[in-house]
């Protein structure tokens, strides 16, 4: 198939989809449905970690926050009515769903109409949303949406192969209802088709789909100019922008999908740009592509492609912004301050011509999310030297307790850098044979401290994992003798000791239960030059964040 025929086919597909959407919304004659008629509730999920074998995303969490911000600022969404799960697991999402169901039930009992918004940004594969080492079936999400008592349920799923959600079911249009205000049903908007990936961009500091979703909701999708961004407007806007923008990317064109099961006549307003009253006003004489960067939240706030002759308003909260206009050979860049309840006008004349190399925003949006985790563990076990005389009278066997901090994926994916402190101590007897042949027993109290650092390779599956690797220990030992040496000073010893550690861990959400074994080599050179070995076994609990 030639390149031109492929392009024609893509255009034809886009045309059919837009036409279909247009027909659907036309059938549901848009009523002037005042925002706030339905009380919105939102569950917002973002997770960069897709578990083993999945490349860690950079901006999923950031996208989730952006989405939350726009609905809180412009979508009549109260902070108390949002459940946000960032870097959480499937159980946390399910718990949030349950809490949300209760809240929606209370709202319904009080006679309110309810709008449920579900947003997901992260990995998805084979019909599941990947949340770290856990998975959530898309079918479960759909079932939850279907069973919800909310009047209208809208899901935005920004993930690879998320089109699976709209393909499995939906797409049937229920008969129109009589009332203009009784729209009921469910709409699922996904960032890509079932076989496509969803792409992130360092330039915009997020995924294309959410970027355009948020830009549109802030006002760029308000084609009608009525200050309300409706579901139809935002879908058309996000679809067109995402397709256009990803057409030339290495990841391939990304096609957002739309699935619905809706009854009623109501158009669904999502945001009202006049709600915030402050923002950036792009007058009618301006044209071109503008990118707005929020210096306060360090995120791209919106992007708009403007034609001459139409005025556009991008609703953003009070703060400092960088506005960039891309031109053929250079950029226009300017810093603007948006005041409370004021519209700040953007003028090309006030933006400074800047070369592409000096694009400040490009540097700013590249502030990466933390891609590694930190873990803490408590452990206890026992330690012993392999050599019997050493174990009996020099480095005594002992129980051990310790703490460990792990920097998971800090060095590289699947590698953990760990630091630990282990304490051992107790009382024992030291047997000494004097020159006279007398065997003397000296009661001894001892204490050992290990400061360890290790680099472990980890293999994690959904409910368990294996890890192992080298560990270097600074061993510090001390012992104090009893009668007749009770007044003599304690003996001390310090040495570096290389070793290996291996463990198996059971994942319980953010918590792990683990068992670990360690072996170490110790070069002892005080009485004699001796190569000693010691080992230990431990179990404990770990928390990963």
């Amino acid at each position, binding site marked *: 198939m030639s390149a031109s025929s492929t392009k024609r086919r893509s255009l034809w597909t886009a045309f059919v989809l837009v036409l279909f959407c247009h027909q659907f919304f036309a059938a549901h004659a848009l009523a002037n449905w005042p925002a706030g008629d339905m009380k919105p509730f939102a569950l917002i999920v973002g997770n960069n970690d897709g578990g083993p074998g999945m490349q860690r995303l950079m901006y999923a969490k950031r996208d989730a926050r952006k989405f939350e911000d726009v609905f809180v600022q412009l979508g009549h969404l109260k902070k108390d009515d949002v459940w946000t799960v960032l870097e959480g697991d499937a159980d946390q999402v399910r718990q949030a769903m349950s809490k949300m169901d209760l809240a929606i039930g209370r709202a319904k009992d009080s006679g309110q109409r309810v709008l449920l918004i579900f947003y997901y940004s992260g990995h998805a594969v084979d019909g599941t949303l990947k949340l770290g080492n856990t998975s959530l079936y898309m079918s479960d999400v759909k079932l939850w949406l279907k069973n919800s008592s909310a009047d209208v349920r809208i899901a935005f799923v920004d993930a690879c192969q998320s089109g699976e959600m709209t393909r499995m079911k939906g797409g049937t249009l229920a008969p129109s209802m009589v009332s203009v205000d009784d729209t009921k049903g469910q709409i699922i908007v996904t960032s890509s088709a079932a076989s496509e990936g969803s792409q992130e961009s360092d330039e915009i500091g997020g995924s294309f789909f959410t970027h355009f979703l948020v830009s549109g909701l802030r006002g760029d999708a308000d084609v009608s100019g009525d200050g309300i961004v409706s579901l139809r407007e935002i879908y058309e806007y996000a679809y067109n922008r995402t397709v256009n923008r990803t057409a030339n990317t290495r990841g391939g064109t990304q096609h957002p999908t739309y699935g619905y099961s809706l009854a009623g006549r109501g158009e669904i307003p999502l945001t009202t740009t006049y709600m915030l009253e402050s923002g950036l006003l792009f007058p009618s004489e301006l044209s071109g592509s503008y990118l707005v960067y929020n210096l306060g939240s360090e995120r791209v706030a919106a992007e708009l492609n403007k034609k001459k002759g139409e005025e556009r308003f991008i609703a953003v909260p009070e703060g400092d912004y960088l506005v960039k206009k891309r031109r053929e050979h250079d950029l226009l860049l300017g810093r603007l301050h948006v005041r409370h309840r004021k519209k700040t006008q953007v003028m090309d004349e006030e933006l400074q011509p800047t070369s592409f190399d000096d694009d400040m925003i490009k540097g700013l949006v590249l502030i990466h999310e933390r891609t590694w985790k930190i873990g803490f563990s408590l452990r206890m076990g026992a330690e012993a030297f392999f050599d019997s005389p050493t174990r009996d009278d020099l480095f005594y066997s002992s129980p051990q307790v310790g703490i460990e901090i792990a920097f998971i994926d800090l060095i590289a994916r699947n590698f953990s850098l760990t630091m630990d402190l282990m304490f051992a101590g107790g009382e024992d007897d030291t047997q000494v044979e004097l020159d006279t042949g007398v065997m*003397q027993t000296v009661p001894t109290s001892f204490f050992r401290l290990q400061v360890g650092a290790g680099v472990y390779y980890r293999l994690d599956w959904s409910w368990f994992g294996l890890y192992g690797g080298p560990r270097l220990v600074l061993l510090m*030992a001390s012992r104090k003798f009893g009668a007749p040496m009770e007044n003599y000073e304690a*003996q001390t010893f310090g040495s570096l000791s290389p070793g290996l550690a291996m463990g198996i861990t059971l994942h319980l959400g953010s918590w792990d239960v683990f068992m670990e074994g360690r072996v170490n080599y110790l070069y002892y*050179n005080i009485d004699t030059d001796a190569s000693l070995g010691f080992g230990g076994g431990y179990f404990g609990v770990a928390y990963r964040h």
Partner: protein
Amino acid sequence: MRWFVTLFILVFPAIICVPGCGDYSNEQLEEDLEFLSAVPAKEVMELRVADTNPRVLGDSEQGLNSIQEPLLGQLAEFYVSSLKVTAGINQGVLGFLDSVDKIVHFFPPVLREKDRRVWGPWPSDDNPDVDVRFSMLKQAPGQFGIFFQLRLVSRAETMGFDEGWTDCIHGQVSPQGLVKRGTGTLVVDLQSCAEVDENSGQGTATVLFDTAPDAENRDGKTELSIDFVDFLGRDGLKNGDLPLTANYYYLERSDKSGKFDFRTWSDVHAETDPQLDALEQWDWAVRWTDDGCGRADLRISGGDLGNFEATASECWNSDHKRVYFSNPFASAPDPTEEGSEADCCLPAAVFND
């Protein structure tokens, strides 16, 4: 940032400790124990007639000075006199061993070398211009030299750690069999002490001791031979006392029986005839059994007695009460003999000249 954290975590432990540093040593423990065990314990060196520590009686009315009019059934006079002598020896010569035992037990050495330990120096209690220190040297397996040394404080500034010290008390110990038991010698050389501290006294005291177990005394014994030659300690010098030349032999077996022989010189006529002022030789032979019952024989000869010699004897029971007494020097109305010698638990001593 992440590489800095990684590098820091890996390199930090290596920076703060060179591998294998410290004094965590069983050899050092063994050596410390050997030095510590070599010093004879005071308990095994103490003189105790009839298993009685003179410190128990003390100077109270019921103690060493309680004898008013010795009679049968009362505390035996010769027994008490023997205890007074042991108290003096214990306090004088063996008090030093007690001090050494305390030093090595309560204070870790300031210098630990292979086969050598040094404690101190400390300022002398008796003379602020003098430093004292104690050192031990392992001369051979199972043989240690002990040295109690003096040095003028002023020399510390110009001399090295081991320079300028005078051996005031020195000796050798050979631990044997049991901890803190063995054989050895101890020489209290007040003549050398006086070279540094002129108030130290004069003369020498030499102690040969054997506290090791043997075939008859499996738990050890206490056998001491002590020779004083022109010996006058710091207090005696201050009080203007006469120097002491005397020999003491003491043996306590592991079953607590024992004997104590010593010789002194005194004027037997001091109270009866001042004209006869020559000193007579007093030979004491004190014996006791494992239950504390005993006998003391005192032979007086020489001096104004010429070739005449007489022996006084006293026997006591296990409660240390007099059961028999004979005194050939007694004059009327005092009897020359009380009780029956048949009541004595031991026969008369045989003096070896």
